[in-house]
């Protein structure tokens, strides 16, 4: 069988962020490239969301496990900063899944981060924009904490980066 890049990406849809199990690594945007050599050797390139994210090692192993599960024995999974991740790389589908999970998706922005961007977050529960940033540091490196003045609930946002 000749493997294709599309086929590999479909398989990798199965691999989820261990801390946000509704979000696939493909939708998260951390799979930066898939190459298949003439000898059917599969190379998957990945990049971390945050350099200190302890889940990245787990995600890399999960990619390897998934390839093996589908009978792909010749593979290399690389983790590098060659194509650095930013939160604009989250797909539309990924953003929708985050919202359904109760995590406000990061706003698309021009990659110039200021407090204004952090302070105006839409509540994932009631869609109100009347929310307050409580702290830019949440339970994991990729989340900030906010309070909704409308539905009076704390909620988390996947941080813009």
């Amino acid at each position, binding site marked *: 069988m000749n493997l294709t890049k599309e086929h590999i990406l479909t398989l990798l849809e199965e691999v989820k962020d261990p801390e946000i199990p509704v979000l696939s690594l493909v939708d998260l945007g951390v799979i930066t490239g898939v190459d298949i050599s003439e000898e059917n050797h599969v190379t998957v390139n990945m*990049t*971390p969301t*945050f*350099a*200190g*994210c*302890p889940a990245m090692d787990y995600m890399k192993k999960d990619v390897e496990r998934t390839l093996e599960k589908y009978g792909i024995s010749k593979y290399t999974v690389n983790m*590098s*900063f*060659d194509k*650095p*991740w*930013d939160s604009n790389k989250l797909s539309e589908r990924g953003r929708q899944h985050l919202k359904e999970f109760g995590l406000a998706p990061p706003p698309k922005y021009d*990659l110039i*981060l*200021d*407090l204004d961007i*952090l302070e105006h977050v839409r509540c994932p529960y009631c869609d109100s924009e009347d929310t307050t940033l*409580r*702290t*830019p*540091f*949440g*339970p994991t*490196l990729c989340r900030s*904490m906010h309070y909704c003045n409308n539905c009076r609930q704390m909620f988390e946002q996947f*941080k813009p*980066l």
Partner: protein
Amino acid sequence: MNEQAIKDLLYKLADDQLILGHRNSEWTGFGPILEEDIAFSSMAQDKIGHSLAFYTLLQELGEADPDTVAFTRNANQFHNSQLVELPNGEYDFSLIRHFLFDNAEIIRFEMLSQSSYEPIAKVATKLKGEVKYHVLHANTWIKNLGSSTEEAILRLQSSLNEALPYALGMFEPSKYEQELIDSGVYAGEEAVKAEWLKRIQAVIEKTELKLPDLESIAPRYGGRYGNHTEHLQPLLDEMAEVFKIDPTAEW
């Protein structure tokens, strides 16, 4: 490209991150409020991640693996500035140190993202986005507390005065300074310092704090080449305590 010069640069970047990351982690469970406990713990995790990124570049240049480098050297083999090894003290000192350090660090990363040495440029491009959160955090608290109660202002001012000689020590020139500048690897400590001064001044001006005349302060140099305060070795002993029980263990 002089590999020694690049290693020298990488070691000081990585060691600063590792040691300050460890100090930040000492706030876990002790923060004055829950949000600050989480903030310092998160920044610790980021910084240790950043040190790993630079130790990995060192490994690619033939140095030992990151764990060995982090856990088996003695104080006189570390290249961090003395600023980052000082004990946390009270919250006001940790906050001032965080403010002085991260405002310099983000400038280093911004400049290094333009480095002619591509591996450093790639890592710096990534990390400058993360450290932005650290800078926002520090600047917000300095602005809030630096214009709040008399006690807060007095405490921050006294910590600022105490930390400044060490903060200036961050800009200790490298043995390879001119070479790094000439080859476009790094803009150099003087350039970082000049920009740093502008940025910290802009924040301090919005508070009741006063920035002392920096010309009259002797910088605490030495850290970049293994000359440390008595506080570093106990930190390293504690950090490596578990690792040294069984250095061959798989984690």
